Structure formats: structure tokens, C-alpha cells
């Protein structure tokens, strides 16, 4: 089967670089799946979950926005931040979420409210991706 080369980079480091079969990314207008030999595409990403499939194995990452480019058979994701599921500190994400929620409750200024909402979204994504990993570690009950 054809594969494509995927590279995920953040300002701090190169998070992922490998040949993959399928990529599912959170586009600004909703989830999009990229298969090999996709037409050239340029899109902004919203905070969410990236799923990478390679040889039947799935890898998950949490991203907090960025850009995705498809050019030739090469996919580039320039993420603001990207964390593979196994690196997510669930405890920290949960705390960040609680803190942000408390901030929303306390009805702060508009600007802070925006930041808090974004923080909640980020934390929620992290938690979701981290849970994926846990459910994967347990043997699936069906199928």
C-alpha cells in the first residue's frame, strides 16, 4: 500500500517523522482524513487530536492549533504544541482544566475569559488523548 511521509514539528522540537498510511487531523472546519497521494492542501488546525495509522497501529497526539500542509506525498504539520499520548501528564492536564474552570466561574475580564476557555479546550484534548492510550492498553472487550 502507498504511504506518505508525515512530519510534525513544533517550535521546540520535531515530534514525529515517519512514513504513515492514514492521518486524521482536526481542521478548522472539522476533522479531515488524509490518505497518500492527496491533492495539495493548506489548512489551519484547531486544538484537538491527531490520529496516525501505520501498519494497523494507531498513534495519538494532542495538538493545540497549528497548520497542515500537503504537498506531493509529504505532509507537514506545524503545530503550536504537540504531545504524543504517552507523554501527557494526565494529572497535570486535569489540574489545568480545574484551574481554568475556576477562572471562568469567577467571571474575570473578557480577555482572561478567552484564555481560560482556550485552556479548558487544550486540557480537555489532552485528557481525551490520554484516555485513548489507557483504553488501548487494556485488551479490547469486543472485536
Amino acid at each position, binding site marked *: 500500500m502507498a504511504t506518505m511521509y508525515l*512530519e510534525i*514539528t*513544533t*517550535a*521546540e*522540537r*520535531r515530534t514525529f517523522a515517519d512514513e504513515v498510511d492514514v492521518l486524521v487531523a482536526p*481542521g*478548522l*472546519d472539522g476533522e*479531515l482524513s488524509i490518505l497518500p497521494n492527496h*491533492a*495539495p*492542501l*493548506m*489548512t*489551519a488546525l484547531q486544538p484537538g487530536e491527531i490520529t496516525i495509522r501505520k501498519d494497523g497501529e494507531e498513534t495519538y497526539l494532542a495538538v493545540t492549533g497549528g*497548520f497542515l*500542509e500537503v*504537498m*506531493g506525498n509529504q505532509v*507537514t504539520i*506545524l503545530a503550536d504544541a504537540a504531545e504524543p499520548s504517552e507523554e501527557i501528564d494526565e494529572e497535570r492536564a486535569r489540574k489545568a482544566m480545574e484551574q481554568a474552570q475556576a477562572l471562568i466561574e469567577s467571571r474575570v475580564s473578557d480577555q482572561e475569559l478567552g484564555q481560560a476557555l482556550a485552556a479548558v479546550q487544550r486540557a480537555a484534548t489532552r485528557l481525551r488523548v490520554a484516555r485513548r492510550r489507557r483504553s488501548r492498553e487494556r485488551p479490547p472487550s469486543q472485536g
Partner: protein
Amino acid sequence: MPSLRQIKRRIRSIENTGKVTKAMEMIAASKMRRAQASVLAGRPYSEKIQEVIAHLAAQPAEQDVVQPLLEQREVRRIQVVQITPDRGLCGGLHSNLNRRVAQFISQQSVPVGIISVGRKGRDFMIRYGQDVKAAFTGLGDRPVVADTSVISRMVVDDYSEGSFDQVFISYMEFVSTTVQQPVVRQLLPIVPAELQATQRVGYIYEPDASTVLESLLPRFVEMEIYHAVLELIASEQSARMVAMRNATESASEMVTDLTLLANKVRQETITSELLDLIAGAAAVR
């Protein structure tokens, strides 16, 4: 011949200088490691975003959207974002850098406005009567993107308003601990990549071209400036460490030489005193 006491005083003073430069070398070394790590880690992103943007600039333009940051205009005014260190004692780093920028400016036939980042560049440009539009200092050793985004916002705004038609960025590129390279590179308008015909098909933009470009292009400028600052800091700390190591070595060399001289002076004093004694004893007898 200086007196023994004078020599000893000089030895002490040079030893103290050596201690200071040694300490500065250690500090620079630890800062250098961190700065080198962050510049190397940031390079893939910087290279990737350049590549993506260059692809983008090479695509056939959409008729309905005009992106000022991609637009090639007739050049009437040039802006240079000059990134330099705040502090000296880093060898020839800032004179090399300033010389390179000065040379670049003298080659231009249109007026050049300058945004200085760092005290060394600002002072140099003001001293030579250049048109400094804005100066930023005190970024520190570990800036974050938010620290430099003021600069990039200013660059983007000036360019979009048409105050400048071309923007260059100058900094010291970090090659290795001993080698740093002064660079002046065009930042805006974005230089299109050379694409093969098969690649020049136009992107599918999602949700649409203007939404993507309006967030991607400023982000690009922001990351480029941030990365240039990281390159400079890594270069600065490396240059400082090397300069301070050389200073420490010269200090210990001087101490060795002066100690030799001191011993010689001491011996000569003793010899002449002995001669006096003997002569005096002979006279008494």
C-alpha cells in the same frame, strides 16, 4: 627594572582578572549549552515553515484575495531588523555583525529604516546617524515567543501599511561554538520557492485562503524573528565563552611571566645586597 613590590602587585591584579574571566567563562558555558540546545531544537520548525511559506508564495495567486505580505512592490523604502547582543565582552561578535549590516546599508540606493534589537546594534546605528525607527533591549537569555511578538507585530504592521516595501533581518547565525556567521536575509515579501510544474497546481485551502493566510503569514514572521533571536543568543554565549577562555589563558600566561621576572628581581636584589655586605666587611677589616 620595576621594583619587586610593583611586580607582585601586578601579579595579584592579573590573578584577580583571571578569576573574573574564568567565572564569566563558566557562566557563558552553561548559558551556551542551553542556548545551543534551544536553537538546534527550533531549527526544524523554522526550516519547515520557510519551506511551506515558500511553496505558498510560489502558487498562482488567488484573484480575489490580496495578501500584503506576499505582494511584491516596487522598493522605495527598506527596513532592516537588526538583532544584536545587549552586552559586550564577546570578542569580535558585534563588530563583525555591525560591519556586515553597515556594508549592506551602504549598498542600498533607497532609504533604510532600522529596528534595533539589542543595545549594541542600537548604539552603533545611532552613533553613525542611521534612521533607527525603534529599539528593543533587555530580552534576556531565555526569551519566549511572546517577548519577540511585539517586534514581529511592528514589522507586519509597517509592511502592510506600506511604510516599507522590503524587510531584511540580520543576525549572527550559530554554526558551532567557535564559528558564527553574520547574515542579512530577506524576510518580506516572502521569496517564492522554485517549484516544478507539477507542484504548481494551487492549494485547496480549508476553510478558505484568506483565513489560513491571515493567521499563517504573521505566524511565519513571528517565528522567523524569534528564531533569529535564538540564533543570536547561542552565538553570543558561544563567542563570549571562547573570548573569556582566551582571556583566562592570557592572564595565566602573564602571571607565569611576571612570576619569573619577580624571582629574577628578587635574586638580583639579594646578590647586590650580598655584594654590599662583603664589600662593607672587607672595608672594616
